[in-house]
């Protein structure tokens, strides 16, 4: 796998998008740390940008890259290499440079200002990296299943919109509609089904902002702060990487190119 991965990494890392991605995160983190008083405010400000941009960049770039690489993928598949090896190499080759750009873009300014990583920053870095893998998995599935580039990009954008805006809107609407009923358990279940909400709550818990969300916030804090909650949220995030990846791999293995 390393024989192919090496060249995919080289190709992606030399592209301007990875550098722009790093510079954006570096500038936004440095700016927030410089102008915002208090780590909690900085983290929440950063979180709002990170959890919108990482899913968008990962899903759009992943889908676009897979479509643009079709002829190259065909060439590779005519070599004595297993399809699963090609898929793994492409997936890691696309996701790893973006994960590194994000980690360095946020991590370097954080280290400059604080000399050490706080639990909140570590959680933000880990969840941001996990979201890159999640949305690259989804992007690869879309790129494989949808042959038309414009349709693939359109679906990728709709999926991003769903996870970042529509899902939260629906969650809010359901909570309001059923406000007379105990909604704590269903809310937790719904949060587990959206990787961005999971990541957001993980970061919120590290800065104690959940206390401002009233009773529901307390219930969420109690659940996700517990050992079981932590295990469930980590498992859920890993499943969000593994399931689209697994379905994508199966589609890749069976695809007629």
């Amino acid at each position: 796998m390393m024989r192919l991965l090496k060249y995919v990494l080289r190709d992606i890392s030399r592209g301007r998008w990875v550098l722009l991605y790093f510079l954006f995160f570096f500038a936004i983190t440095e700016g927030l740390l410089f102008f915002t008083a208090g780590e909690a405010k900085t983290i929440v400000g950063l979180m709002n940008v990170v959890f919108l941009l990482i899913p968008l960049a990962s899903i759009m770039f992943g889908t676009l890259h897979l479509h643009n690489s079709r002829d190259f993928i065909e060439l590779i598949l005519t070599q004595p290499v297993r399809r699963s090896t090609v898929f793994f190499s492409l997936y890691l080759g696309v996701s790893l440079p973006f994960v590194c750009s994000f980690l360095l873009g946020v991590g370097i300014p954080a280290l400059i200002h604080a000399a050490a990583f706080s639990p909140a920053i570590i959680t933000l870095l880990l969840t941001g990296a996990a979201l890159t893998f999640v949305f690259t998995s989804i992007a690869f599935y879309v790129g494989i299943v949808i042959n038309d580039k414009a349709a693939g990009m359109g679906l990728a954008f709709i999926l991003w919109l769903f996870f970042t805006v529509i899902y939260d809107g629906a969650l809010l609407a359901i909570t309001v509609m059923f406000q007379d009923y105990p909604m704590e358990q269903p809310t937790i279940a719904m949060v587990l089904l959206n990787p961005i909400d999971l990541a957001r709550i993980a970061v919120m818990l590290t800065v104690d902002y959940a206390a401002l969300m009233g009773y529901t916030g307390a219930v969420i804090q109690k659940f996700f702060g517990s050992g079981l909650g932590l295990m469930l949220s980590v498992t859920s995030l890993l499943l969000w990487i593994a399931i689209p990846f697994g379905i994508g791999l199966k589609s890749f293995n069976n695809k007629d190119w």
Partner: protein
Amino acid sequence: MIVIDHLTKRFGKQTVLNNVSLEFRPGTVTAVIGPNGSGKSTLMKCILGLVKPTEGSVVINGRNALTDVRCHADVGYMAQIARYPDNLRASEVIDMVKGLRERTADVSDTLINAFDLKPHLNKPMRTLSGGTRQKVGAIIALMFSPHSLLLDEPTAGLDPVASQQMKDQIEAAKSRGASVIITSHIVAEIEELADRAVFLHEGMVIHEGSVSSVREQLEVLR
């Protein structure tokens, strides 16, 4: 030697290849011809393992091409349109394929000189012209002196000098006993290069034989 046995490929309700059985013998250049949509590309892709047939089998040098990727180690393929990762250099693309084949004993240096690719080796692929990218494709297909060579419109996009070089390479491959399969719409090229021709129409083999016999058959069909 490539043996195709009762190969059928359906995309939904559409049958693109219908019960095709063919043999591509060593030391022979076979032209696969037919109108657009006749199944030429699908046939090539089935041999290369890019398209999975609905029924039938493809055997390359004794190995089942549908289940054993190792058979690709002795197959060279040149696509009609060559696109490579934008930020890799031509030399890196060639090295990458060598790495994937786990082979170093090849004739890439000879081919680089023959196709005059040396001045472009260190340039990113995105800066190369279509014709130069085709030359990279030709080198990748030929550099391991494979026993099976599949060329999809091999001279399309090449300048006259490179085009003649490609024809010379096809002749050389034939002389050393390779099974060469080409697709082309240029009749003169087929007559110049091919020993036999297979005429496909609506996914079926309409005629198989010498190039002149296929030409006669075409004139009857008109």
